[in-house]
Protein backbone atom coordinates (compact mmCIF):
# COMPACT_ATOMS: atom_id res chain seq x y z
CA UNK A 1 0.00 0.00 0.00
CA UNK A 2 2.57 2.52 1.08
CA UNK A 3 4.68 1.48 -1.92
CA UNK A 4 1.83 2.22 -4.27
CA UNK A 5 1.51 5.66 -2.76
CA UNK A 6 5.22 6.24 -2.80
CA UNK A 7 5.61 5.30 -6.48
CA UNK A 8 3.49 8.27 -7.54
CA UNK A 9 4.36 10.86 -4.96
CA UNK A 10 3.11 14.05 -6.58
CA UNK A 11 0.26 12.76 -8.72
CA UNK A 12 -3.04 13.47 -6.98
CA UNK A 13 -4.64 10.34 -8.44
CA UNK A 14 -7.99 9.01 -7.36
CA UNK A 15 -6.54 5.57 -6.67
CA UNK A 16 -3.99 7.01 -4.25
CA UNK A 17 -6.72 8.90 -2.43
CA UNK A 18 -8.77 5.74 -2.23
CA UNK A 19 -5.81 3.72 -0.96
CA UNK A 20 -5.04 6.38 1.60
CA UNK A 21 -8.65 6.36 2.75
CA UNK A 22 -8.54 2.56 3.07
CA UNK A 23 -5.32 2.81 5.05
CA UNK A 24 -6.78 5.53 7.24
CA UNK A 25 -10.25 4.17 7.88
CA UNK A 26 -10.89 0.60 6.84
CA UNK A 27 -7.63 -1.04 7.91
CA UNK A 28 -7.86 -0.15 11.60
CA UNK A 29 -11.47 -1.33 11.69
CA UNK A 30 -10.57 -4.62 10.00
CA UNK A 31 -7.69 -5.08 12.42
CA UNK A 32 -10.01 -4.73 15.39
CA UNK A 33 -12.55 -7.14 13.87
CA UNK A 34 -9.84 -9.69 13.07
CA UNK A 35 -8.52 -9.45 16.63
CA UNK A 36 -11.98 -10.01 18.10
CA UNK A 37 -12.61 -13.02 15.84
CA UNK A 38 -9.21 -14.51 16.74
CA UNK A 39 -9.86 -14.07 20.46
CA UNK A 40 -13.32 -15.56 19.99
CA UNK A 41 -11.88 -18.68 18.28
CA UNK A 42 -9.30 -19.07 21.01
CA UNK A 43 -11.97 -18.78 23.70
CA UNK A 44 -14.29 -21.23 21.88
CA UNK A 45 -11.56 -23.84 21.57
CA UNK A 46 -10.50 -23.33 25.18
CA UNK A 47 -14.04 -23.68 26.50
CA UNK A 48 -15.22 -26.52 24.26
CA UNK A 49 -12.23 -28.87 24.32
CA UNK A 50 -13.11 -30.18 27.80
CA UNK A 51 -16.26 -31.79 26.39
CA UNK A 52 -14.36 -33.16 23.40
CA UNK A 53 -11.71 -34.72 25.66
CA UNK A 54 -14.40 -36.10 27.98
CA UNK A 55 -16.21 -37.81 25.10
CA UNK A 56 -12.96 -39.25 23.75
CA UNK A 57 -12.02 -40.64 27.14
CA UNK A 58 -15.38 -42.37 27.53
CA UNK A 59 -14.99 -44.02 24.16
CA UNK A 60 -11.35 -44.84 24.93
CA UNK A 61 -10.06 -43.03 21.89
CA UNK A 62 -6.85 -41.07 21.64
CA UNK A 63 -7.27 -37.78 19.69
CA UNK A 64 -4.57 -35.81 17.93
CA UNK A 65 -4.33 -32.08 18.52
CA UNK A 66 -5.83 -31.42 15.07
CA UNK A 67 -8.83 -33.62 15.82
CA UNK A 68 -9.43 -31.91 19.17
CA UNK A 69 -9.28 -28.54 17.41
CA UNK A 70 -11.70 -29.59 14.69
CA UNK A 71 -14.18 -31.08 17.15
CA UNK A 72 -14.06 -28.11 19.52
CA UNK A 73 -15.15 -25.91 16.64
CA UNK A 74 -17.96 -28.09 15.34
CA UNK A 75 -19.93 -29.33 18.33
CA UNK A 76 -23.70 -29.32 18.15
CA UNK A 77 -24.17 -27.67 21.54
CA UNK A 78 -20.90 -25.97 22.34
CA UNK A 79 -20.37 -23.90 25.47
CA UNK A 80 -19.27 -21.09 23.21
CA UNK A 81 -20.03 -21.55 19.50
CA UNK A 82 -17.23 -20.67 17.08
CA UNK A 83 -17.78 -17.61 14.87
CA UNK A 84 -18.34 -19.65 11.70
CA UNK A 85 -20.99 -21.78 13.44
CA UNK A 86 -22.94 -18.66 14.41
CA UNK A 87 -22.50 -17.24 10.94
CA UNK A 88 -23.67 -20.50 9.31
CA UNK A 89 -26.74 -20.54 11.54
CA UNK A 90 -27.45 -16.88 10.77
CA UNK A 91 -27.12 -17.55 7.06
CA UNK A 92 -29.21 -20.70 7.11
CA UNK A 93 -32.07 -19.09 9.05
CA UNK A 94 -32.14 -15.90 7.00
CA UNK A 95 -31.02 -16.54 3.41
CA UNK A 96 -31.68 -20.28 3.64
CA UNK A 97 -35.32 -20.00 4.74
CA UNK A 98 -38.23 -18.30 2.99
CA UNK A 99 -39.93 -15.63 5.09
CA UNK A 100 -43.32 -16.98 4.00
CA UNK A 101 -44.10 -20.61 3.33
CA UNK A 102 -47.11 -22.40 1.97
CA UNK A 103 -49.28 -24.32 4.34
CA UNK A 104 -52.67 -25.80 3.53
CA UNK A 105 -52.94 -23.69 0.43
CA UNK A 106 -52.08 -20.31 1.98
CA UNK A 107 -48.89 -18.45 2.66
CA UNK A 108 -48.02 -17.96 6.30
CA UNK A 109 -44.95 -16.58 8.07
CA UNK A 110 -42.21 -19.19 8.37
CA UNK A 111 -41.20 -19.60 12.04
CA UNK A 112 -37.83 -20.96 10.93
CA UNK A 113 -36.91 -17.66 9.35
CA UNK A 114 -34.91 -15.37 11.63
CA UNK A 115 -36.16 -12.42 9.56
CA UNK A 116 -39.67 -13.33 10.64
CA UNK A 117 -38.63 -13.39 14.29
CA UNK A 118 -36.67 -10.17 13.90
CA UNK A 119 -39.76 -8.48 12.48
CA UNK A 120 -41.86 -9.84 15.34
CA UNK A 121 -39.50 -7.97 17.65
CA UNK A 122 -38.94 -4.90 15.48
CA UNK A 123 -42.61 -4.02 15.03
CA UNK A 124 -43.31 -3.62 18.78
CA UNK A 125 -39.92 -1.92 19.15
CA UNK A 126 -40.85 0.73 16.59
CA UNK A 127 -44.31 1.23 18.07
CA UNK A 128 -42.88 1.32 21.59
CA UNK A 129 -40.19 3.75 20.54
CA UNK A 130 -42.80 5.99 18.94
CA UNK A 131 -44.89 5.93 22.15
CA UNK A 132 -41.85 6.33 24.41
CA UNK A 133 -40.26 9.04 22.28
CA UNK A 134 -43.47 11.05 22.12
CA UNK A 135 -44.11 10.60 25.85
CA UNK A 136 -40.54 11.62 26.58
CA UNK A 137 -40.82 14.79 24.49
CA UNK A 138 -44.19 15.73 26.02
CA UNK A 139 -42.96 15.10 29.57
CA UNK A 140 -39.86 17.21 28.88
CA UNK A 141 -41.99 20.07 27.55
CA UNK A 142 -44.13 19.84 30.70
CA UNK A 143 -41.09 19.73 32.98
CA UNK A 144 -39.53 22.79 31.37
CA UNK A 145 -42.73 24.86 31.37
CA UNK A 146 -44.41 23.82 34.61
CA UNK A 147 -42.73 24.11 37.97
CA UNK A 148 -45.00 21.54 39.59
CA UNK A 149 -44.11 19.02 36.88
CA UNK A 150 -40.45 19.90 37.17
CA UNK A 151 -40.54 19.00 40.86
CA UNK A 152 -42.81 15.97 40.60
CA UNK A 153 -42.19 14.14 37.32
CA UNK A 154 -38.42 13.78 37.26
CA UNK A 155 -38.12 11.81 40.54
CA UNK A 156 -40.78 9.40 39.31
CA UNK A 157 -39.10 9.04 35.95
CA UNK A 158 -35.83 8.20 37.67
CA UNK A 159 -37.56 5.82 40.08
CA UNK A 160 -39.23 4.05 37.17
CA UNK A 161 -35.83 3.21 35.75
CA UNK A 162 -34.50 1.74 38.98
CA UNK A 163 -37.10 -1.04 38.92
CA UNK A 164 -35.65 -4.08 37.12
CA UNK A 165 -37.57 -4.36 33.87
CA UNK A 166 -37.41 -8.15 34.18
CA UNK A 167 -39.44 -7.89 37.41
CA UNK A 168 -42.10 -5.53 36.17
CA UNK A 169 -42.55 -6.88 32.63
CA UNK A 170 -44.59 -10.00 33.61
CA UNK A 171 -46.88 -7.87 35.77
CA UNK A 172 -47.53 -5.44 32.95
CA UNK A 173 -48.29 -8.36 30.63
CA UNK A 174 -50.68 -9.94 33.15
CA UNK A 175 -52.50 -6.68 33.89
CA UNK A 176 -52.89 -5.83 30.21
CA UNK A 177 -53.97 -9.36 29.41
CA UNK A 178 -56.76 -9.12 31.97
CA UNK A 179 -58.18 -6.11 30.15
CA UNK A 180 -57.97 -7.93 26.85
CA UNK A 181 -54.73 -6.54 25.45
CA UNK A 182 -52.20 -9.00 24.13
CA UNK A 183 -49.57 -9.38 21.46
CA UNK A 184 -48.16 -6.18 20.01
CA UNK A 185 -49.44 -3.62 22.53
CA UNK A 186 -48.05 -5.07 25.80
CA UNK A 187 -44.63 -5.59 24.20
CA UNK A 188 -44.70 -2.02 22.87
CA UNK A 189 -45.60 -0.58 26.25
CA UNK A 190 -42.67 -2.30 27.96
CA UNK A 191 -40.46 -1.09 25.15
CA UNK A 192 -41.83 2.45 25.61
CA UNK A 193 -41.22 2.14 29.36
CA UNK A 194 -37.51 1.77 28.71
CA UNK A 195 -37.18 4.25 25.86
CA UNK A 196 -38.97 7.31 27.26
CA UNK A 197 -36.40 7.97 29.97
CA UNK A 198 -33.34 8.93 27.91
CA UNK A 199 -35.61 11.07 25.73
CA UNK A 200 -36.95 12.96 28.77
CA UNK A 201 -33.46 13.60 30.13
CA UNK A 202 -31.98 14.67 26.78
CA UNK A 203 -34.96 16.78 25.79
CA UNK A 204 -35.11 18.63 29.12
CA UNK A 205 -31.43 19.46 28.72
CA UNK A 206 -32.03 20.56 25.13
CA UNK A 207 -35.04 22.73 25.92
CA UNK A 208 -33.02 24.42 28.66
CA UNK A 209 -29.93 24.88 26.48
CA UNK A 210 -30.68 28.46 25.27
CA UNK A 211 -28.60 30.92 27.31
CA UNK A 212 -29.82 34.02 29.13
CA UNK A 213 -28.98 36.26 26.18
CA UNK A 214 -30.97 34.16 23.69
CA UNK A 215 -33.95 34.38 26.04
CA UNK A 216 -33.48 38.11 26.75
CA UNK A 217 -33.52 38.78 23.02
CA UNK A 218 -37.02 37.33 22.76
CA UNK A 219 -38.12 39.27 25.84
CA UNK A 220 -37.12 42.50 24.10
CA UNK A 221 -39.63 41.51 21.40
CA UNK A 222 -42.27 40.79 24.07
CA UNK A 223 -42.45 37.25 22.70
CA UNK A 224 -44.97 34.89 24.31
CA UNK A 225 -44.08 31.61 25.98
CA UNK A 226 -45.35 29.71 22.94
CA UNK A 227 -43.20 31.80 20.59
CA UNK A 228 -40.17 31.26 22.82
CA UNK A 229 -40.85 27.52 22.65
CA UNK A 230 -41.31 27.24 18.88
CA UNK A 231 -38.69 29.74 17.79
CA UNK A 232 -35.96 29.13 20.36
CA UNK A 233 -36.30 26.20 22.77
CA UNK A 234 -37.49 23.59 20.29
CA UNK A 235 -34.94 24.22 17.53
CA UNK A 236 -32.17 24.51 20.14
CA UNK A 237 -33.14 21.10 21.54
CA UNK A 238 -32.92 19.19 18.23
CA UNK A 239 -29.27 18.04 18.55
CA UNK A 240 -29.95 16.90 22.13
CA UNK A 241 -33.12 15.14 21.02
CA UNK A 242 -31.34 13.06 18.40
CA UNK A 243 -28.59 12.02 20.80
CA UNK A 244 -31.19 10.78 23.29
CA UNK A 245 -33.38 9.17 20.62
CA UNK A 246 -30.42 6.98 19.63
CA UNK A 247 -30.08 5.76 23.21
CA UNK A 248 -33.86 5.41 23.45
CA UNK A 249 -34.30 3.23 20.37
CA UNK A 250 -31.63 0.78 21.53
CA UNK A 251 -33.36 0.65 24.93
CA UNK A 252 -36.69 0.07 23.16
CA UNK A 253 -35.29 -3.03 21.44
CA UNK A 254 -33.99 -4.39 24.74
CA UNK A 255 -37.42 -3.71 26.26
CA UNK A 256 -39.21 -5.71 23.58
CA UNK A 257 -36.86 -8.67 23.90
CA UNK A 258 -37.25 -8.65 27.68
CA UNK A 259 -41.03 -8.46 27.26
CA UNK A 260 -40.91 -11.64 25.16
CA UNK A 261 -39.02 -13.63 27.79
CA UNK A 262 -41.46 -14.08 30.69
CA UNK A 263 -44.54 -14.60 28.53
CA UNK A 264 -43.49 -17.69 26.69
CA UNK A 265 -43.80 -15.81 23.43
CA UNK A 266 -43.52 -18.14 20.45
CA UNK A 267 -42.23 -15.60 17.99
CA UNK A 268 -39.61 -12.88 18.21
CA UNK A 269 -35.93 -12.71 19.05
CA UNK A 270 -36.69 -13.03 22.76
CA UNK A 271 -38.60 -16.24 22.02
CA UNK A 272 -35.62 -17.58 20.08
CA UNK A 273 -33.38 -16.84 23.07
CA UNK A 274 -35.83 -18.59 25.37
CA UNK A 275 -36.31 -21.76 23.30
CA UNK A 276 -32.58 -21.84 22.64
CA UNK A 277 -31.89 -21.88 26.35
CA UNK A 278 -34.56 -24.57 26.99
CA UNK A 279 -32.89 -26.97 24.64
CA UNK A 280 -29.28 -25.89 25.14
CA UNK A 281 -29.14 -24.59 21.56
CA UNK A 282 -26.28 -22.19 22.16
CA UNK A 283 -25.78 -21.59 18.45
CA UNK A 284 -29.39 -20.49 18.12
CA UNK A 285 -29.02 -18.18 21.13
CA UNK A 286 -25.93 -16.56 19.71
CA UNK A 287 -27.43 -16.09 16.29
CA UNK A 288 -30.51 -14.47 17.87
CA UNK A 289 -28.20 -12.20 19.88
CA UNK A 290 -26.38 -11.24 16.71
CA UNK A 291 -29.63 -10.56 14.94
CA UNK A 292 -30.66 -8.31 17.85
CA UNK A 293 -27.34 -6.48 17.63
CA UNK A 294 -27.74 -6.08 13.86
CA UNK A 295 -31.27 -4.70 14.36
CA UNK A 296 -30.06 -2.25 17.03
CA UNK A 297 -27.20 -1.10 14.81
CA UNK A 298 -29.57 -0.65 11.86
CA UNK A 299 -32.04 1.33 13.97
CA UNK A 300 -29.36 3.59 15.43
CA UNK A 301 -27.75 4.07 12.00
CA UNK A 302 -31.11 5.01 10.48
CA UNK A 303 -31.66 7.59 13.21
CA UNK A 304 -28.10 8.84 12.65
CA UNK A 305 -28.90 9.37 8.97
CA UNK A 306 -32.10 11.26 9.78
CA UNK A 307 -30.12 13.29 12.32
CA UNK A 308 -27.50 14.29 9.76
CA UNK A 309 -30.10 15.25 7.18
CA UNK A 310 -32.08 17.29 9.70
CA UNK A 311 -29.07 19.08 11.16
CA UNK A 312 -27.78 19.83 7.67
CA UNK A 313 -31.09 21.38 6.75
CA UNK A 314 -30.97 23.43 9.95
CA UNK A 315 -27.42 24.60 9.23
CA UNK A 316 -26.18 22.98 12.44
CA UNK A 317 -24.10 20.33 10.70
CA UNK A 318 -20.77 21.77 9.67
Amino acid at each position, binding site marked *: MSEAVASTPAAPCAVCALLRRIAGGVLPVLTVVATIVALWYAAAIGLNRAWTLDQAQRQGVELTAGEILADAMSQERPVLPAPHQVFDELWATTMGEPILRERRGEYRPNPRSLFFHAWQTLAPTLLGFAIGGLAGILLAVGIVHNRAMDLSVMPWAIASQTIPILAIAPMIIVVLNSIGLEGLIPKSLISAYLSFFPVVVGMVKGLRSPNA*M*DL*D*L*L*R*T*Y*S*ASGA*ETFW*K*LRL*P*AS*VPFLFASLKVGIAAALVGTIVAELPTGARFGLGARLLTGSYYGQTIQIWSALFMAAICAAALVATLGLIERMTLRR*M*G*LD*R
Partner: protein
Amino acid sequence: MSMAAEAVAKMATTAAPVIEARGLDLTFQTADGPVQALRDVNLTIDRGDFVSFIGPSGCGKTTFLRVVAALERPTGGTITVNGMTPDEARRQRAYGYVFQAAGLYPWRTIEKNIALPLEIMGFDRAEQARRVDDVLRLVDLEGFGKKFPWQLSGGMQQRASIARALAFDADLLLMDEPFGALDEIVRDHLNEQLLALWRRTEKTIGFVTHSIPEAVYLSTKIVVMSPRPGRITDVIESDLGPDRPLDIRDTPEFLAIAHRVREGLRAGHAYDD
Protein backbone atom coordinates in the same frame (compact mmCIF):
# COMPACT_ATOMS: atom_id res chain seq x y z
CA MET B 1 -23.57 64.29 41.24
CA SER B 2 -26.00 67.17 41.73
CA MET B 3 -24.00 69.25 39.26
CA ALA B 4 -24.45 66.58 36.68
CA ALA B 5 -28.12 66.35 37.49
CA GLU B 6 -28.52 70.09 37.06
CA ALA B 7 -26.69 70.03 33.77
CA VAL B 8 -28.96 67.27 32.61
CA ALA B 9 -32.05 69.09 33.81
CA LYS B 10 -31.02 72.19 31.86
CA MET B 11 -30.58 70.03 28.80
CA ALA B 12 -34.17 68.82 28.81
CA THR B 13 -35.38 71.32 26.26
CA THR B 14 -38.27 71.61 23.88
CA ALA B 15 -38.80 68.05 22.63
CA ALA B 16 -39.98 65.38 25.06
CA PRO B 17 -37.02 63.29 26.22
CA VAL B 18 -36.66 59.72 24.95
CA ILE B 19 -35.39 58.49 28.31
CA GLU B 20 -35.89 60.24 31.59
CA ALA B 21 -34.61 58.70 34.85
CA ARG B 22 -35.21 60.34 38.23
CA GLY B 23 -33.65 59.04 41.43
CA LEU B 24 -33.40 55.56 39.95
CA ASP B 25 -32.33 52.83 42.39
CA LEU B 26 -31.84 49.13 41.77
CA THR B 27 -30.75 46.64 44.40
CA PHE B 28 -30.20 42.99 43.51
CA GLN B 29 -30.89 40.42 46.22
CA THR B 30 -28.09 37.90 45.91
CA ALA B 31 -26.99 34.95 48.01
CA ASP B 32 -24.26 37.17 49.50
CA GLY B 33 -26.78 39.84 50.51
CA PRO B 34 -28.11 42.88 48.68
CA VAL B 35 -25.98 44.47 45.95
CA GLN B 36 -26.78 48.03 44.99
CA ALA B 37 -26.36 48.11 41.22
CA LEU B 38 -27.77 51.63 40.66
CA ARG B 39 -28.06 54.49 43.12
CA ASP B 40 -29.88 57.76 42.54
CA VAL B 41 -29.40 57.81 38.78
CA ASN B 42 -30.76 60.97 37.13
CA LEU B 43 -30.44 61.19 33.38
CA THR B 44 -32.26 62.67 30.41
CA ILE B 45 -31.65 61.48 26.88
CA ASP B 46 -33.13 63.54 24.07
CA ARG B 47 -34.24 62.48 20.62
CA GLY B 48 -31.31 62.00 18.28
CA ASP B 49 -28.69 61.80 21.05
CA PHE B 50 -25.84 59.32 20.80
CA VAL B 51 -25.19 58.57 24.46
CA SER B 52 -22.29 56.44 25.64
CA PHE B 53 -22.19 54.88 29.07
CA ILE B 54 -18.63 54.31 30.24
CA GLY B 55 -17.18 53.00 33.45
CA PRO B 56 -15.45 49.99 34.98
CA SER B 57 -17.14 46.62 35.43
CA GLY B 58 -19.91 46.67 38.00
CA CYS B 59 -20.71 50.37 37.57
CA GLY B 60 -24.24 49.59 36.47
CA LYS B 61 -24.00 50.79 32.87
CA THR B 62 -25.39 47.53 31.46
CA THR B 63 -27.95 47.39 34.28
CA PHE B 64 -29.19 50.86 33.37
CA LEU B 65 -29.61 49.81 29.74
CA ARG B 66 -31.49 46.71 30.88
CA VAL B 67 -33.79 48.85 33.03
CA VAL B 68 -34.57 50.98 29.97
CA ALA B 69 -35.32 47.76 28.08
CA ALA B 70 -37.56 46.47 30.90
CA LEU B 71 -35.25 43.49 31.34
CA GLU B 72 -34.66 44.58 34.94
CA ARG B 73 -37.11 46.28 37.30
CA PRO B 74 -35.86 49.25 39.35
CA THR B 75 -36.40 49.12 43.11
CA GLY B 76 -36.78 52.88 43.46
CA GLY B 77 -37.20 56.12 41.51
CA THR B 78 -38.88 56.60 38.18
CA ILE B 79 -37.94 56.05 34.57
CA THR B 80 -39.87 56.79 31.41
CA VAL B 81 -39.12 55.74 27.85
CA ASN B 82 -40.91 57.89 25.25
CA GLY B 83 -43.02 59.12 28.15
CA MET B 84 -44.19 55.59 29.04
CA THR B 85 -43.06 52.94 31.50
CA PRO B 86 -40.33 50.69 30.09
CA ASP B 87 -42.84 47.81 29.88
CA GLU B 88 -45.30 49.84 27.84
CA ALA B 89 -42.50 51.18 25.68
CA ARG B 90 -41.35 47.66 24.92
CA ARG B 91 -44.84 46.64 23.88
CA GLN B 92 -44.86 49.67 21.56
CA ARG B 93 -41.58 48.39 20.04
CA ALA B 94 -39.78 51.50 21.24
CA TYR B 95 -36.29 50.03 21.09
CA GLY B 96 -34.00 47.54 19.41
CA TYR B 97 -31.43 45.87 21.65
CA VAL B 98 -27.97 44.76 20.54
CA PHE B 99 -26.19 42.41 22.93
CA GLN B 100 -22.50 41.86 23.63
CA ALA B 101 -22.46 38.79 21.42
CA ALA B 102 -24.29 38.74 18.11
CA GLY B 103 -26.67 36.10 19.49
CA LEU B 104 -27.83 34.97 16.06
CA TYR B 105 -29.74 31.70 16.19
CA PRO B 106 -27.45 29.19 14.44
CA TRP B 107 -30.32 27.29 12.82
CA ARG B 108 -31.60 30.39 11.05
CA THR B 109 -30.02 32.01 8.03
CA ILE B 110 -29.04 35.66 8.35
CA GLU B 111 -32.26 36.84 6.73
CA LYS B 112 -34.35 34.53 8.89
CA ASN B 113 -32.52 35.84 11.96
CA ILE B 114 -33.31 39.40 10.97
CA ALA B 115 -36.91 38.38 10.28
CA LEU B 116 -37.25 36.88 13.79
CA PRO B 117 -38.61 40.03 15.48
CA LEU B 118 -40.77 40.71 12.42
CA GLU B 119 -42.35 37.24 12.67
CA ILE B 120 -43.10 37.75 16.35
CA MET B 121 -44.49 41.23 15.74
CA GLY B 122 -46.77 39.91 13.05
CA PHE B 123 -45.50 41.55 9.86
CA ASP B 124 -46.69 39.76 6.71
CA ARG B 125 -44.21 37.88 4.55
CA ALA B 126 -43.85 40.49 1.83
CA GLU B 127 -43.23 43.22 4.41
CA GLN B 128 -40.72 40.98 6.21
CA ALA B 129 -38.77 40.41 2.99
CA ARG B 130 -38.80 44.12 2.16
CA ARG B 131 -37.54 45.14 5.59
CA VAL B 132 -34.88 42.43 5.68
CA ASP B 133 -33.56 43.68 2.34
CA ASP B 134 -33.58 47.27 3.60
CA VAL B 135 -31.63 46.64 6.79
CA LEU B 136 -29.20 44.25 5.11
CA ARG B 137 -28.33 47.12 2.76
CA LEU B 138 -28.10 49.50 5.73
CA VAL B 139 -25.40 47.37 7.41
CA ASP B 140 -23.63 46.47 4.15
CA LEU B 141 -24.55 42.79 4.17
CA GLU B 142 -26.35 42.55 0.83
CA GLY B 143 -25.98 39.08 -0.64
CA PHE B 144 -25.34 37.42 2.72
CA GLY B 145 -29.00 36.85 3.60
CA LYS B 146 -28.97 33.15 2.70
CA LYS B 147 -25.81 32.37 4.70
CA PHE B 148 -25.84 30.75 8.09
CA PRO B 149 -24.25 32.73 10.95
CA TRP B 150 -21.15 30.50 11.20
CA GLN B 151 -20.33 31.32 7.58
CA LEU B 152 -19.81 34.99 8.54
CA SER B 153 -16.95 36.66 10.43
CA GLY B 154 -17.51 38.00 13.94
CA GLY B 155 -17.81 41.59 12.70
CA MET B 156 -20.34 40.62 10.04
CA GLN B 157 -22.34 38.66 12.60
CA GLN B 158 -22.49 41.71 14.86
CA ARG B 159 -23.62 43.84 11.89
CA ALA B 160 -26.36 41.29 11.23
CA SER B 161 -27.46 41.58 14.85
CA ILE B 162 -27.60 45.39 14.47
CA ALA B 163 -29.70 44.87 11.33
CA ARG B 164 -32.02 42.65 13.38
CA ALA B 165 -32.42 45.44 15.96
CA LEU B 166 -33.15 47.95 13.21
CA ALA B 167 -35.61 45.79 11.29
CA PHE B 168 -38.78 46.90 13.07
CA ASP B 169 -38.04 50.62 12.95
CA ALA B 170 -37.60 51.40 16.63
CA ASP B 171 -36.42 54.98 17.17
CA LEU B 172 -34.19 53.93 20.04
CA LEU B 173 -31.22 51.60 19.69
CA LEU B 174 -29.75 50.16 22.89
CA MET B 175 -26.29 48.64 22.42
CA ASP B 176 -24.49 46.77 25.20
CA GLU B 177 -20.78 46.64 24.35
CA PRO B 178 -21.65 45.43 20.85
CA PHE B 179 -18.07 45.53 19.58
CA GLY B 180 -16.34 44.44 22.79
CA ALA B 181 -15.37 41.02 21.46
CA LEU B 182 -13.99 42.28 18.14
CA ASP B 183 -10.45 43.26 17.26
CA GLU B 184 -9.40 46.92 17.08
CA ILE B 185 -9.41 47.26 13.30
CA VAL B 186 -12.83 45.70 12.81
CA ARG B 187 -14.05 47.80 15.69
CA ASP B 188 -12.85 51.07 14.12
CA HIS B 189 -14.57 50.13 10.90
CA LEU B 190 -17.84 49.25 12.64
CA ASN B 191 -17.70 52.48 14.66
CA GLU B 192 -17.45 54.48 11.44
CA GLN B 193 -20.37 52.56 9.97
CA LEU B 194 -22.44 52.95 13.10
CA LEU B 195 -21.88 56.70 13.07
CA ALA B 196 -22.92 56.88 9.42
CA LEU B 197 -26.00 54.80 10.22
CA TRP B 198 -26.91 57.06 13.14
CA ARG B 199 -26.62 60.17 10.95
CA ARG B 200 -28.72 58.64 8.21
CA THR B 201 -31.49 57.21 10.40
CA GLU B 202 -31.51 59.96 13.09
CA LYS B 203 -32.12 57.35 15.78
CA THR B 204 -31.40 57.79 19.46
CA ILE B 205 -28.62 55.46 20.58
CA GLY B 206 -27.61 54.28 24.03
CA PHE B 207 -24.20 52.66 23.84
CA VAL B 208 -22.36 50.86 26.64
CA THR B 209 -18.59 50.64 26.30
CA HIS B 210 -15.33 50.14 28.17
CA SER B 211 -13.32 52.14 25.69
CA ILE B 212 -12.67 55.87 26.14
CA PRO B 213 -11.73 56.54 22.47
CA GLU B 214 -14.82 54.65 21.31
CA ALA B 215 -17.08 56.64 23.63
CA VAL B 216 -15.59 60.00 22.63
CA TYR B 217 -15.54 59.17 18.94
CA LEU B 218 -19.18 58.10 18.77
CA SER B 219 -21.08 60.20 21.26
CA THR B 220 -22.88 63.47 21.57
CA LYS B 221 -23.10 62.80 25.29
CA ILE B 222 -20.86 60.67 27.51
CA VAL B 223 -22.19 59.36 30.81
CA VAL B 224 -19.32 58.45 33.17
CA MET B 225 -20.28 55.95 35.84
CA SER B 226 -18.53 54.44 38.84
CA PRO B 227 -19.11 51.24 40.79
CA ARG B 228 -20.17 50.15 44.27
CA PRO B 229 -22.80 51.47 44.20
CA GLY B 230 -23.33 52.12 40.48
CA ARG B 231 -23.88 55.84 39.97
CA ILE B 232 -23.32 58.64 37.47
CA THR B 233 -20.25 60.75 38.25
CA ASP B 234 -20.17 62.99 35.19
CA VAL B 235 -22.14 63.74 32.03
CA ILE B 236 -19.97 65.20 29.27
CA GLU B 237 -21.37 66.92 26.19
CA SER B 238 -19.25 66.26 23.15
CA ASP B 239 -19.38 68.85 20.39
CA LEU B 240 -17.17 67.23 17.79
CA GLY B 241 -19.84 67.81 15.13
CA PRO B 242 -21.58 65.30 12.95
CA ASP B 243 -18.72 64.54 10.53
CA ARG B 244 -16.13 62.47 12.30
CA PRO B 245 -13.39 60.85 10.25
CA LEU B 246 -11.31 58.35 12.22
CA ASP B 247 -8.35 60.74 12.44
CA ILE B 248 -10.45 63.16 14.46
CA ARG B 249 -9.10 61.12 17.34
CA ASP B 250 -5.77 62.96 17.05
CA THR B 251 -7.25 66.48 17.34
CA PRO B 252 -6.86 68.53 20.54
CA GLU B 253 -10.65 68.80 20.93
CA PHE B 254 -10.97 65.02 20.93
CA LEU B 255 -8.09 64.58 23.34
CA ALA B 256 -9.52 67.20 25.69
CA ILE B 257 -12.81 65.34 25.94
CA ALA B 258 -11.02 62.02 26.35
CA HIS B 259 -8.97 63.57 29.14
CA ARG B 260 -12.11 64.72 30.94
CA VAL B 261 -13.62 61.25 30.64
CA ARG B 262 -10.46 59.73 32.06
CA GLU B 263 -10.47 62.19 34.95
CA GLY B 264 -14.11 61.34 35.63
CA LEU B 265 -13.34 57.62 35.66
CA ARG B 266 -10.37 58.15 37.96
CA ALA B 267 -12.35 60.28 40.39
CA GLY B 268 -15.13 57.73 40.64
CA HIS B 269 -12.97 54.70 40.96
CA ALA B 270 -11.64 53.47 44.26
CA TYR B 271 -8.33 51.95 43.30
CA ASP B 272 -7.78 50.17 46.56
CA ASP B 273 -10.33 47.44 45.77
